């Protein structure tokens, strides 16, 4: 079963114009806030009406402006987990889950609720109200409610972004386990690149209402083709630079960073000498040394001064001034071993292939 989405719609800030397919399994719809991700989900569910386009699940057409087809929300058989979950506050967890099963025989209702509650670890919580369970349990209840009816497609609007990674990946493991036998398309919206690696098999990257890239998380996020995508994908360092020399034989080229004398060797592209390029480097791909390194294969060794150092959870974030401002991620152990402090002289080591060229 595949969901085919082709939606054009005038929004206040831009025109949403996307065409993509969601095969069975988890596809991530990835983009910044306001890129149009939620609107795409709402169009598939029938909660907003596109101006033009066609939405089909397998052979079943849900929307087609050419034939004036517009199946009502309640007849689309689409599971939707809302960002704010939208559990019914006056109903118990059990009644929430059973809500979509009205009209089916009591026996079937009971066995379906019991089976989905078991899959998502909710059996002991069925009599509680949504306000009486934890955040992670509420996410599970919302998932169970959306899945109990055996929807043809599951739409998830950042339902897990408020949870810590451990709970998040456990819930996704449960979801994958549940979907193993059923193989329905799952479309998961997020703006967090960590969730893309953790949760998705495929990525559709969206920016200002357009699809920028599609592919595996590795293709889309590790080799971002676009500056916007690079910053979303966790490339903390993005610099404009000028090509000063092309080395066809080694497959590299030398670039001078704009506004600095610092130079970087980067992979060769089509760009001619003198042309502007944009270089993206992950903060975690940069090595820091407190002595001038010698005997390294890495081609880029930049001298700089440590401007600031701050701790964010398990990551030490260093700001290094090397003509331009670099952001570097270190482990706490690494930072201790180097005995870094503000004003320290440091060298940054960057491999040629850690530098990605992205379009502006």
């Amino acid at each position, binding site marked *: 079963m595949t969901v085919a989405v082709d939606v054009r719609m005038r929004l206040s800030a831009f025109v949403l114009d996307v065409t993509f397919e969601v095969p069975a399994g988890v596809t991530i719809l990835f983009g910044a806030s306001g890129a149009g991700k939620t609107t795409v989900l709402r169009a598939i569910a029938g*909660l907003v009406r596109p101006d033009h386009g066609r939405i089909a699940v397998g052979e079943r057409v849900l929307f087609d402006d050419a034939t004036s087809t517009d199946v009502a929300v*309640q007849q689309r058989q689409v599971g939707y987990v*809302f960002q*704010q979950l*939208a559990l*019914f506050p*006056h109903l118990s967890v059990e009644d929430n889950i059973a*809500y*979509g099963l*009205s009209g089916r025989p009591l026996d079937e209702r009971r066995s379906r609720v019991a089976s989905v509650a078991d899959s998502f670890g909710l059996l002991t919580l069925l009599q509680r109200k949504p306000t009486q369970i934890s955040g992670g349990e509420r996410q599970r209840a919302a998932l169970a409610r959306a899945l109990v009816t055996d929807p043809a497609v599951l739409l998830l609007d950042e339902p897990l972004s408020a949870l810590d990674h451990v709970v998040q990946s456990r819930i996704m493991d449960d979801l994958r386990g549940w979907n193993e036998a059923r193989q329905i398309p799952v479309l998961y919206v997020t703006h967090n690149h960590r969730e893309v690696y953790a949760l998705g098999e495929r990525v559709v990257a969206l920016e200002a209402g357009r699809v920028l890239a599609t592919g595996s998380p590795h293709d889309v996020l590790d080799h971002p083709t676009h500056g916007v995508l690079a910053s979303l994908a966790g490339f903390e360092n993005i610099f404009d630079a000028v090509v000063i020399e092309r080395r066809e034989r080694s497959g590299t080229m030398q670039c001078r960073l704009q506004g600095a004398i610092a130079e970087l060797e980067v992979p060769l592209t089509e760009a001619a000498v003198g042309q502007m390029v944009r270089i993206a480097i992950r903060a975690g791909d940069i090595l820091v040394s407190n002595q001038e390194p010698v005997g390294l294969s890495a081609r880029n060794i930049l001298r700089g001064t440590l401007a600031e150092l701050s701790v964010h959870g398990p990551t030490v974030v260093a700001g290094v001034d090397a003509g331009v401002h670099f952001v570097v991620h270190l482990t706490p152990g690494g930072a201790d071993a180097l005995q870094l402090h503000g004003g320290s002289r440091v060298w940054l080591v960057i491999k040629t292939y850690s530098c990605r060229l992205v379009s502006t």
Partner: protein
Amino acid sequence: MDWQAIWLTVKLATLVSMTLLVLGMPLAHWLAFTRWRGKFLIEAVVSLPLVLPPTVLGFYLLMAMGSRSPIGRWWMSLTGHGLAFTFEGLVIASLVYNLPFAVQPMAAAFAQVDPALREASATLGASPLRTFARITLPLSIEGALAGLVLSFAHTVGEFGVVLMVGGNLPGITRTVSVSIYDRVQALDYSGANQTALLLLAFSFTILVMVYGFRRRPWAAVPLT
């Protein structure tokens, strides 16, 4: 104490508030959720009785019920008598007069229900009617009750419209408030006081109930 007037008033108020609960709910639901641009026009029409002098409203209702209006003639052909100065006429006039007191609290309560809950209900296969019965109404029940109680209380207290449309016929159109006015005209102050005191106690009890139901911040007018 004018028991006949009290009984008539209770009968009138019960009939009016119950009818408004049934008729007002779809109207309130429509007003709360429609995206139609002309909605404000309907809101203004529904709210007219709030600002119109009761005598003005009563005058036009009286004209509408008279034998020269199509409504009046239609009623005459149906029942053999006119609408003005009858209990039925009084019920119809009270329905119009009390519409905003029923519809406004209901519409306000429906509108404050999180739209995502209604959308979730729809994605789970529920028809609009089922979404209303299982989600919107249970989560705004205090608004429906406020509409019921306020339209009841307001019917009990109305004076101008009753006098214009119903006159002052004992057992047919003489309500408590008209009865009090009558006693005062007859200089029977202690008789007026008895009934007035009863109305005062009644109104206070009603408001205690309305504010008791509403768990939201206090507002001077418990309408919106």
